[in-house]
């Protein structure tokens, strides 16, 4: 039996449907991350689970019990908010013990729970301070501690790290991972930061306009996205998309051509995929790390370097392909993002040629569903030696 199960959840605000018939299940001890663009309904979904929003229809079950009409405090969930939501008039100790105190737990028990949570989060020294006297990271620890003292069945996080600076964020990311293993607790975590999603999740739920696009492990989603949206959403810099047209297809292979690029790309369709009819619009997707340097029987993009970002261990190049443009690209100008795992000494304006290996690309059909995956993920690594 799944630990937390959402069945056909719908949440409407007047005429506007923020969450449209969403169903998924979370197993005991899983760390599920919900990602999606702003306004896609992540917070609404999370707040519905917490009981802060009344759902329009559907069911939310924890341990098989339908809790969708219960009071927030009776659901066995604890939530950590983006802006901490600590009670300013209480000390850290009182903040963390408040739920137990309201529930009528004896003082000794409250104290023990607070001490235990404080030890896990290493905030023992802060217990008698007011929230105002804490740094952002400490405040978020206290907010997490407040959730821990309640020992809930499910932890809910709504973008808990987005108010922190980058260094603190990666530190807290590790901390949260440790916490998850240590407590073995079920956690549902909302973020729009894909690094958080990729690094922390046991499974990722990708939401878009109130529906689930795909659920899977981080690498599943990265390697085998169901559609163009998921493919473009995960990965930074995002996948390069090239608008193309299908030509003839035969024996599970399809040839595609794109304006401005010589020759056609012969791509192997995934098993069971319908081949696009000749002339239909398709999209070729190339991960930044999948661009090759030697001709592998595909396209060759000759361009010049528009921007180069040297990160020491790796290098990102934004390539101006002349007439050939990436659609929907990270840079609005339609530059191609190229990733290299080594240092490159080049400057703005220098020429650069990259190749597109037909075995290393994604292909999206006319309805944006994925119809071809790269042949092997090793070939990607191969290409960039």
């Amino acid at each position, binding site marked *: 039996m799944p630990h937390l199960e959402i069945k056909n959840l719908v949440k409407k605000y007047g005429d506007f449907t923020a969450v449209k018939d969403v169903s998924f299940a979370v197993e005991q001890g899983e760390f599920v991350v919900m990602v999606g663009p702003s306004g896609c309904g992540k917070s609404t979904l999370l707040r519905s689970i*917490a*009981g*802060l929003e009344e759902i329009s229809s559907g069911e939310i079950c924890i341990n098989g019990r339908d809790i969708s009409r219960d*009071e*927030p*405090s009776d659901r066995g*969930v*604890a*939530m950590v*908010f983006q*802006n901490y*939501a*600590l*009670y*300013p*008039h209480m000390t850290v100790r009182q903040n963390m013990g*408040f*739920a137990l105190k*309201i*529930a009528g737990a004896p003082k000794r028990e409250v104290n023990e729970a607070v001490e235990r949570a404080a030890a896990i989060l290493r905030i023992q020294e802060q217990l008698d301070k007011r929230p105002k006297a804490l740094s952002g990271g400490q405040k978020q620890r206290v907010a997490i501690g*407040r959730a821990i003292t*309640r020992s809930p069945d499910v932890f809910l996080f709504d973008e808990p790290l987005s108010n922190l600076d980058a260094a603190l964020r990666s530190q807290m990311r590790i901390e949260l991972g440790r916490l998850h293993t240590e407590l073995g607790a079920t956690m549902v975590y909302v973020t729009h930061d894909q690094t958080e999603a990729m690094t922390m999740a046991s499974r990722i739920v990708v939401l878009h306009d109130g529906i689930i696009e795909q659920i899977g492990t981080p690498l599943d989603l990265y390697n085998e996205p169901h559609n163009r949206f998921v493919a473009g959403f995960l990965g930074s810099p995002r996948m390069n998309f090239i608008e193309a047209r299908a030509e003839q297809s035969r024996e599970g292979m399809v040839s595609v051509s794109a304006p401005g690029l010589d020759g056609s790309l012969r791509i192997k369709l995934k098993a069971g995929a319908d081949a696009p009819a000749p002339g239909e619009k398709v999209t070729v997707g190339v991960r930044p790390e999948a661009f090759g340097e030697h001709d592998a029987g595909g396209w060759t993009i000759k361009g010049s370097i528009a921007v180069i970002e040297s990160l020491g261990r790796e290098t990102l190049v934004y390539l101006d392909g002349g007439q050939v443009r990436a659609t929907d690209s990270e840079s609005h100008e339609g530059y191609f993002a190229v990733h290299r795992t080594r240092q490159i000494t080049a400057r703005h304006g220098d020429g650069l040629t990259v190749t597109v290996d037909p075995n290393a690309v994604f292909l999206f059909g006319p309805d944006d569903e994925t119809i071809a995956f790269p042949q092997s993920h090793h070939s990607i690594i191969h290409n960039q030696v």
Partner: protein
Amino acid sequence: MGSRFRFVNVVLYGAVSLWSLFVLLPLVWMVIASSKTRREIFLDPLGLPAQFRLDAFERAWSVGMGTFLFNSAIITFFSVIVIVVVSGMAAYVLARSDNKWMQLVYLMIVAGFAVPVQAVLVPLFQMVSEAGMLNSRAAIVLPYAAYGVPFTTILFYAFFLDFPRELEEAARLDGCGRLQIFFRIILPLSGPAIASAAIFQAVFIWNEFVLALLMLTKPALKTLPVGILQLTGEFTADWPAIMAGLSIAVLPILLIFILAQKYFVRSLAGLGK
């Protein structure tokens, strides 16, 4: 920029200083006049007394200033308590409701703010008298509270609209019901709003004259503004004693105001947002 800036500053400070003098001089005159003799007040209204004396205070005190002071304190205290509790809870519910009938209720409360005391004096008197409450403290506390509630509700309403929702949501998850949220989370964090509402109402009630004159005729129940009136006879008036009585009346509220003005100013400044 520097000299121009300084010039503007000088003008502003000058204007504010003048205004302060304008407000403060009558107060100073009141205190000085209370230690003059009756003759001196009329012969040399602006001069200093020949001799500093306190007998006007004694005369004022002897007509029962102590009782009036006590009555004023009790009535102000209870009125303010009723006002703060009632408006606080009303404003909270109104600020958190999307119901259009609730919006109407709020509008009506705002409209109530616009009704002048004098307009309803007669019916109010009849109501209180029919209820057999004349010459009781409740007869004055209830109308004061009724007059204070609209303004205070508006003040609290604005404050609660800006109150961070997450805190209430966190409290709900922590197991608080509506009342617990109000008393454990909202009220403790409403200090500035409560302080300014309380001061505002306290000053008004402490100084209120017409209603008190009408409702309280027994000397034992009179408040300061009405009580001081006893120092004026039909043909004569003991002006130094009246000034002494007024000084006694002004002192407590002035002290409270000075002590709490920080909150008062902050909360009123917040209203303009």
